[in-house]
């Protein structure tokens, strides 16, 4: 199941073979193989309890595996934890900074723990606060920070030692959308500077935004892997939802799209419960074509939106099980058609 280094450039920053970790009867990690090339972002996608955090904890030397082998930046996670800790950064699900300390003090402390000189640690703390737009809050205790500020400080803390590999364990879980975008921007910047990132997330959208390669895991096992376009093709990718002003026109709209003879439009379906027409999106050009076509035919549209598959839909697509409500829709359609 291992996806080998196919693009031919760059070494693997992370190599995992047959990794297993059980907690009693729970198989948190159940035989995982994983390669992350240097300078890329590997997204590990999975629902709660899939084993994402356990995987990250093993790779960051916080947990010993039961069996299997993992090397990060060339160091074995079991036999060379000390060397490995010098070359990695970890940002957990919760902000792992000291709440009672000021932002600057947190960064200074971590600098000192990473063997910076007093002066060096001071400079680095100033620099990182500046970079993450936290200079104004430098002297405030972290307790008074907003959720987004905490995550930014956490990212800053993880980057102080210039890590070769950065783990981001669900970096935006529990954040509001605006703050989530803030964190995404920071992560994109970190990636653009050439860092290798292993990102875990529950959100398809986050994986698509940030990751170059994706691994989908469930119950400790890899169930799909590939680059983002590949996986999207597999799960059907985005869909377009069009809401006509008059819901009575749903089927006329489907008919008009289907008759246009354009690629992908034959897949248009009417969802009467939601009052929308759903069209699978193949390309951006197709979006323009659909809108143009509907305009030509004089349809009044009250809303138009693109929709990413949810994690549930991704899982359904990968495991080959069909969603039951889709079956219902199809039968309804047939009834209407009859």
């Amino acid at each position, binding site marked *: 199941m291992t996806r080998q280094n196919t693009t031919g450039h760059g070494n693997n920053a992370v190599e995992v073979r047959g990794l297993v970790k059980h907690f009693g009867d729970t198989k948190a990690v159940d035989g995982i193989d994983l390669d992350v090339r240097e300078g890329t972002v590997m997204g590990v996608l999975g629902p709660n309890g899939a084993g994402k955090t356990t995987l990250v904890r093993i790779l960051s030397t*916080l947990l010993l595996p039961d069996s299997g082998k993992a090397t990060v930046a060339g160091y074995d996670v079991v036999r060379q934890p*000390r060397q490995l800790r010098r070359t*990695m950064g970890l940002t957990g699900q919760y902000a792992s900074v000291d709440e009672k300390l000021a932002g600057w003090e947190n960064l200074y*402390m971590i600098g*000192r723990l990473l063997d910076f*000189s007093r002066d060096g640690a001071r400079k680095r703390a100033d620099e990182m606060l500046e970079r993450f737009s936290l200079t104004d809050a430098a002297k405030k205790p972290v307790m008074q920070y907003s959720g987004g500020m905490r995550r930014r400080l956490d990212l800053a803390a993880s980057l102080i030692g210039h890590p070769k590999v950065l783990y981001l364990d669900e970096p935006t879980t529990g954040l509001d959308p605006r703050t989530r975008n803030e964190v995404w*921007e920071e992560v994109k910047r970190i990636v*653009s*500077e050439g860092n290798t990132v292993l990102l875990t997330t529950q959100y398809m959208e986050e994986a698509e935004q940030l990751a170059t390669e994706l691994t989908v895991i469930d119950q400790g096992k890899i169930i799909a892997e590939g680059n983002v376009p590949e996986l999207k093709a597999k799960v059907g990718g985005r869909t377009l939802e069009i809401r006509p002003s008059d819901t009575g026109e749903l089927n006329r709209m489907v008919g008009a799209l289907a008759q246009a003879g354009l690629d992908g439009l034959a897949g248009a379906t009417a969802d009467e419960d939601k009052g929308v027409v759903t069209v699978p999106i193949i390309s951006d050009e197709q979006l323009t074509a659909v809108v143009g076509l509907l305009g030509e035919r004089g349809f009044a549209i009250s809303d138009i939106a693109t929709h990413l598959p949810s994690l549930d839909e991704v899982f359904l697509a990968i495991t080959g099980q069909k969603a039951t409500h889709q079956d219902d829709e199809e039968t309804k359609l047939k009834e209407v058609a009859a």
Partner: protein
Amino acid sequence: MTTATATTKAPDSEPTPPSPKQGEDEGRIGLRANLRHIGALVRRNALQIKQDPESMMDALLMPIIFTLLFVFVFGGAIGPGGDRDQYTNYLMPGMMAMMGMNIAMAVGTGINEDFRKGVMDRFRSMPIARSSVLIAKVAVEICRMLIAIVVLLTVGFLVGLDIEGRWLEMLAAIGLTTIFGASLVWIFMLLGLTMRTAQAVQGVSFLILMPLQFGSSVFVPVGTMPGWLKAFTDVNPLTHVADASRGLMLGEGAIASPAMWTVIWAVGLTAVVAPIAINKFRKKT
């Protein structure tokens, strides 16, 4: 927020900072680096206290309240012939031992909370000796203990403690008490690492604390206690610490034997419990 986008190259206006030393020899951490790490972590704990001064209440107020309560509530009744001053002299050296124990207790809840907040994950994923986190805690607790003892003795002198100029002996007693208190810190630390919640840590700590405190010679001489209880007080390390301090500060009673037992207990407890605690810290998930 920031205007940087995914496609812009690293905005490298920032100077390259002095890069941290790479671990050549197996990534082993040298003594100097170790001390630097402990120093940074002590600073962290001290800043926490500064941010949260209430956490010093036990060290500052408890000695005052306990001294006043025991001297004035019990002093007249327990002191030989109703002599409160004599009871004060008897009580204060033992109270030092009790303070050491009470201060040590707070470390358990603190470390338990650290784990819940995730900052321990940060420390444990860094290239530092894992023992340094715990050693820094012990160092801070020793400082808090010394502060509590200074407050305690100040109040003691104000209400009539008289050591007849045995200042050096008093320093020796403080030293013994602190060594013993430091060994207790490891026990409460282990509790904090083992129990699930801070509340549980506190509950169990009290269960340990009460019998040790009252089943000792800290508050009253053990002469009137029944045989089975006396058997307990005789091995209770708190009795040894109290007796040794009393011998030193008041110049009456044996010194060598209780002092020796105090050191044996302190060294023994540390030698056994500290490695278990450090190991627990290492493996805690």
